[in-house]
């Protein structure tokens, strides 16, 4: 199979699954749709793995450097001679890694959902949406053109919208889906303007051409750096606006507010979209444009780094206080993406400087595994308990042993305990940060400790703490508790992912992904690992002390740092602030003014002129009093008027 055909099939198969299930399957074989989707997904996964394998080990490397290959490309929407939106597929290390991650996690979720979503009314729709999402995500990562990425960017946005709003009769789900879409849409508007800025100066939308023109000194680079607005060069504006899009999708502060709410969607969806794939699109986007950032716009990269690290810490603090297990995971996701983001931010182009780049993708890769695992595990728990709140849980380790072990592995991985995947990737990031920026480094260390703490807070609260008693008061959920832990379709992905959460750490990632395509051999410094690891283990111990058995310590501590605690519990009131600014200020006032203006001024003028016309008409009507003598008077007045005007006044003009 040729590369172009393979890469055409990779997004096309999920699309076919979507169309098939949405148009046909929904009506004719709703039950079978899940299997169908899963089979197609399996095929896609196999093809993409094979393609990636071929790329990494056979065709991709020329003279020790991984090439950017274009598998296929055609003009989709020509704007002018040179500028056009092309649809195509690019083959380079990051896109290959991404298609593997996306297809694999998607496959896991497909399998998992067979059990998790069983019996749902809109089972077929669910699978069709999964197909749509997978298609969009694959299209996104394979983009050769910045506008192509924008197109798929929007499509993943909408599939995320559809999946979050899957339980459409739940107002909270609807609200969450709207919020997710609108917030990312806002970010995308920035992205769009960024594209316009970049394409205007480079005269292209093609990634490779654009990167070439903006990294090698030339007329375009001169033009874009000299042009500016508000004292910032057009290049920085463009990149920052593009990054705004990335930040929106990757839930970076301050555009993160949608992510926790997005947990209203079905849990497997959260695993797929809001943990492993879509939310890392921002990281992918920055990575895609990395040469421009690194070579021509280091300021931009700094912004990326600081926003990344801030988001990371910010989210970690909030995660320590949340009780909804999915929200804890959501904040943890945000925190981990912040890690990836600042890893990119601290990286440079080429050689050892590019460690951050590699580390970022390494972390992206491992994070996809263990975070998906965490979500799927949480899903299994929720499936069992029928609640998202960790206060309803406790002592579940006996009830669901497989989930317990898998979840523990994932927690260990994310906490960065040596031997698990997360350890390796996190160490690389920390090394990269250490090499470049001490502030970021120390923040990252602190975050790592917090990560370990809240993850184990979660873990202990779910599986230890008090003994589990089913809440029979919750009557309509009552009888479901007889079904045991979970069906195999749910357990199998947990097991596979648990294994991978350990195994993926041992991949020599630098060999494959690096900022300039050349293999990067990072050395593992034991000394630098001591501090974060010990902090992590310390945090785990603290969490164990706090939450293994039910006790009053956490509350006491919360009491002593009341301000911070309440703030974090309420997510530092960012949501409220946004709500106020958007709903009250912008939409409220703007909308009210516009509507008022429309009703009273624009419409008012029209109606007023009608009224004036009618009044004028009424006045005129009074001339007509029905008396022939007054008519004669008007007549004669008219004659006199003309006489006055033309006989006496005419010459005066």
């Amino acid at each position, binding site marked *: 199979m040729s590369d172009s055909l393979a890469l055409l099939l990779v997004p096309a198969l999920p699309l076919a699954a979507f169309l098939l299930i949405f148009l046909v399957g929904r009506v004719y074989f709703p039950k079978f749709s899940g299997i169908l989707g899963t089979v197609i997904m399996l095929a896609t996964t196999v093809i993409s793995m094979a393609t990636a394998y071929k790329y990494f080990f056979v065709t991709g490397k020329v003279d020790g450097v991984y090439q950017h290959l274009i598998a296929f490309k055609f003009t989709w929407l020509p704007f002018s001679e040179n500028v056009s939106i092309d649809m195509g597929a690019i083959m380079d290390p990051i896109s290959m890694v991404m298609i593997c991650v996306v297809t694999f996690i998607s496959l896991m979720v497909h399998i998992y959902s067979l059990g998790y979503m069983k019996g749902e009314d809109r089972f077929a729709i669910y699978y069709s949406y999964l197909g749509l999402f997978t298609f969009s995500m694959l299209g996104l990562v394979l983009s050769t053109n910045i506008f192509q990425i924008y197109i798929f960017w929007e499509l993943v946005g909408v599939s995320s919208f559809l999946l979050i709003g899957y339980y459409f009769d739940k107002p909270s789900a609807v609200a969450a889906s709207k919020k997710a879409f609108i917030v990312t849409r806002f970010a995308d508007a920035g992205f769009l303007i960024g594209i316009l800025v970049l394409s205007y100066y480079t005269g292209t939308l093609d990634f490779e051409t654009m990167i070439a023109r903006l990294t090698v000194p030339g007329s375009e680079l001169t033009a874009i750096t000299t042009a500016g607005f508000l004292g910032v060069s057009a290049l920085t504006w463009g990149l920052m606006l593009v990054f705004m899009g990335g930040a929106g999708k990757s839930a970076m502060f301050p555009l993160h507010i949608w992510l926790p709410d997005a947990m209203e969607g079905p849990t497997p969806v959260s695993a797929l979209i809001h943990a492993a794939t879509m939310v890392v699109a921002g990281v992918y986007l920055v990575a895609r444009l990395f040469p421009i950032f690194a070579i021509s716009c280091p300021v931009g990269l700094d912004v990326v780094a600081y926003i990344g690290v801030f988001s990371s810490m910010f989210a970690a603090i909030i995660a320590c206080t949340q009780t909804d297990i999915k929200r804890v995971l959501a904040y943890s996701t945000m925190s981990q993406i912040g890690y990836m983001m600042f890893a990119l931010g601290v990286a440079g182009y080429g050689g050892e400087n590019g460690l951050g780049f590699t580390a970022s993708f390494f972390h992206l890769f491992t994070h996809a595994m263990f975070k998906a695992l965490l979500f799927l595990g949480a899903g299994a728990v929720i499936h069992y308990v029928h609640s998202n709140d960790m206060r309803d849980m406790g002592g579940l380790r006996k009830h669901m042993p497989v989930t317990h072990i898998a979840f523990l592995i994932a927690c260990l991985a994310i906490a960065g305990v040596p031997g698990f995947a997360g350890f390796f990737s996190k160490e690389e990031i920390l090394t990269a940060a250490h090499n470049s920026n001490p502030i970021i480094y120390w923040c990252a260390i602190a975050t790592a400790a917090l990560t370990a703490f809240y993850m184990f807070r979660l873990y202990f609260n779910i599986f230890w703490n008090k003994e589990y008693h089913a809440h029979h008061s919750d009557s309509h959920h009552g009888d479901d508790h007889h079904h045991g832990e979970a069906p195999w379709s749910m357990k199998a992905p947990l097991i596979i992912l648990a294994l991978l959460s350990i195994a993926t750490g041992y991949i020599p990632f630098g060999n494959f992904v690096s900022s300039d395509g050349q293999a990067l051999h990072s050395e593992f410094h034991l000394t630098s690992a001591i501090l974060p690891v010990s902090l992590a283990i310390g945090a785990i111990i603290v969490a164990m002390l706090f939450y293994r058995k039910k006790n009053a310590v956490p509350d006491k501590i919360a009491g002593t740092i009341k301000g911070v605690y309440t703030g974090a519990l309420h997510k530092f009131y960012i949501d409220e602030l946004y709500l106020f600014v958007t709903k009250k200020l912008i939409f409220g006032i703007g909308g009210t003014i516009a509507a008022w203006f429309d009703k009273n001024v624009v419409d008012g003028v029209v109606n007023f002129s009608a009224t004036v016309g009618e009044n004028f008409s009424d006045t*005129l009507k009074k001339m007509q009093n029905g008396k022939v003598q007054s008519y004669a008077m008007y*007549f004669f007045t008219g004659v006199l008027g003309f006489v006055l005007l033309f006989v006496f006044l005419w010459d005066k003009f």
Partner: protein
Amino acid sequence: MDMNFFILMKPELLLTGLIFIIMFAKIANLAENNGRFLILVNTLLVLNFVAGFFMNQEGTLFSGMYITSDSMAFEKNILNGGMMLISLMAYDWMMRCKNTPEYYMLLLSAQLGMFFLISSGNFLMFYLAMELATIPLAALSNFDLDRPKSSEAAFKSIMSSAFASAIMLFGLSLMYGTTGTLDFAEMQMLVTGSSLQVLAFIFVFAGIAFKLSLVPFHLWTADVYEGSPVPVTATLAVISKATFIFVFMSTMFTVFANFFMVWDKVVMISIIATITIGNFMAVRQTNLKRVLAFSSIAQMGYLLLGVASTSVQGASSVLYFMLIYVFSSVAIFAVVGLIFYQTGKEDVADLRGFYKNNKLLSWVMAVALFSLAGIPPTAGFFGKYFLLTSGAAKGDYIVLTVAILNMIVSLYYYLRIVKAMFIDKSENDFERISVSPIVTVSIVVCIAGVLLTGMSGEVYEQIKSLFLASN
């Protein structure tokens, strides 16, 4: 008297003949049977109309007192046609009338006056013809003898027109005093533009403007239209207007040609006042006939645009529009008459729910109204467009703007009628109006005219050639 006399005066002689035939019919008691009499008259009118197309010559008679030209012959044909259509459309009403022969005698006398008016080459002839065209119509306004409104209309008509023509006559006397002649051609040479002549001109203008219902000489119009029997209203609104606009045009182009600087301005002011006030007056009227009266006032303003342009194109546009106006108005008055004489309803609001039982009549009315409003594909669109074009050719963009903006106002009250018929619901159904075949013929001809006159460019070309030939 040679043959020339008969050929040149053919339209007038035919009319006179008609009047005599009717008179004999009356005397010979042939008119006892209304139906037979009406068939006779209508047949004669049709023949008269057809005869108008043959053997037309240009020339003058009575040492310039009587002039005829192709365009005049065409104008007379329009009048003949209009008269015929009105007569046909009034058939149902006539059938119930008592004094049909008198009606026709008066009507045709008035028409005879109009013919002479059109052909007059001398102010004596002009004055005589004008009175002949006015007085019988005033008498006709009173034709519904028992309806107080009818006699009031007649009273207003005769009084106002007597007053107006007296003032005009005063102007004429002054014209005579300053030039020493009454002949159009001679007077044209002698017009100098002195103040006295301007004064005289304004008096004369007022007299004609009265007939055309230009603002502020228009106030009689609505009352007379409302009170008169519908066919008479139609005659006033259509035939009389058509005559006087033509006469106005020919006098302005000939006698007062050297007076252009003055009358141009006078006419411009009149146009603005007429169109604006005419339209706005119509906006709040409730009586259908009054709405139409004011609409006809406004239409005159548009016609003046063509006159004021003093070009061949303007003149032919005027004639063209007049033709279309005849078709549209007769169709409207036909429907209005049917409604009025069968149900007694004459308010716009009374038309509510009209469409339900009178589908075709509603469409007829709507199409004719759209023609007046200047909405394609009706001919009124073309007519108005050409008038505006000729106005624009002259470059009076202010007047043009007023005229064009007023089209919106006019659309409003036309649509009000359409709305009442088609859209508004009424509690009790509007009864079905019966239409006799002869009336149907009239309506069909009118609607065909409304739809076809514009779509085929031929008609306009034909009219244009009349003026090109005579210039």
